[in-house]
């Protein structure tokens, strides 16, 4: 074998190696994007389902069971919002519920996904809130909407990380 042939084969090997490395980089990036897209789809679906299931828990209490209700509310929140909401529930909602013999419940009618990433889903939730207190002639029903943010908690369950009435 001549030196020229050996040199040509080495060149071919180098070119193939460079192309393979470049292709591997592109494939790696595309694979990562495909994984993120799949995770985003799952997050949007699971986040919307969690918004529908957890909004009634977040807004529901009965003065006769308000301490247990407050614990249940804490169990569906996460992140900085959990501490903020706990302070509001413990400092305002529980005393007011006990004093006024008040109840609250919510029924979710529709949920739409505003934005979604694998670990953060923002939804718009349309719900009806029914509230009552001692002395009221009848419970009050209000059609409401809220922006509900969800993030995975420590155990991977989607939990409420933000709630803003609209």
């Amino acid at each position, binding site marked *: *074998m001549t030196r020229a042939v*050996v040199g040509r*084969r*080495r060149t*071919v*090997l180098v070119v*193939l*190696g460079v*192309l*393979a490395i470049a*292709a*591997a980089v*592109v*494939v790696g990036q*595309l*694979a990562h*994007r*495909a994984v993120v*897209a799949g995770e985003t789809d799952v997050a949007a679906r699971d986040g*919307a389902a969690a918004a529908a299931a957890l909004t009634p828990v977040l807004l529901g209490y009965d003065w006769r069971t308000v301490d247990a209700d407050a614990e249940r509310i804490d169990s569906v929140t996460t992140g900085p919002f959990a501490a903020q909401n706990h302070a509001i529930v413990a400092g305002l909602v529980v005393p007011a519920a006990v004093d006024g013999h008040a109840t609250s419940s919510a029924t979710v*009618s*529709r*949920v*739409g*996904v*505003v934005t979604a990433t694998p670990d953060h889903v923002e*939804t*718009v939730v*349309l719900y009806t809130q029914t509230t009552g207190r001692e002395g009221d002639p009848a419970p009050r029903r209000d*059609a*409401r*909407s*809220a*922006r509900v943010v969800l993030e995975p908690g420590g155990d991977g369950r989607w939990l409420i990380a933000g709630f803003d009435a*609209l």
Partner: protein
Amino acid sequence: MPRPGRPRGAALLLTALLAALVVAGVVLGVVDARAAARGADEATAVDAVRTHLTELVAAPSSSTARTQALDGATGAWRARLEQGGVPAASSVVVRAVGLESLDGDTARVVAAARLDDGSGQRAWRVDAALVRQDGRWLVDDLAEVP
């Protein structure tokens, strides 16, 4: 002394690897393009509803807005609009719009807005059904969620 079998074997191996990577790249490229198209579809459908709600409320006082509202509608909803079926309000603030579902050429979107009728504001909660026609998302039905 050079051994001719090794470079040839390495070249074959690299060629096979490159071919596999190209095939994987094509497959993943198609997956990526579909995901990007779906993301764009979702954003466009949501924007179509946001724009339509604004045009709808402006329609009674603006012929341009009325034309645009009709242009963004189709089917039974367009027929209702042509007969003047718009909410009585002077302005609207669309607070949030979210996608409920998207399947091929149909989508369902919900929106939370506030209508100002001059004497005060009220919540306006909307459920919109959309269809894709000629590459555009058009409102096919729109109803207030009670």
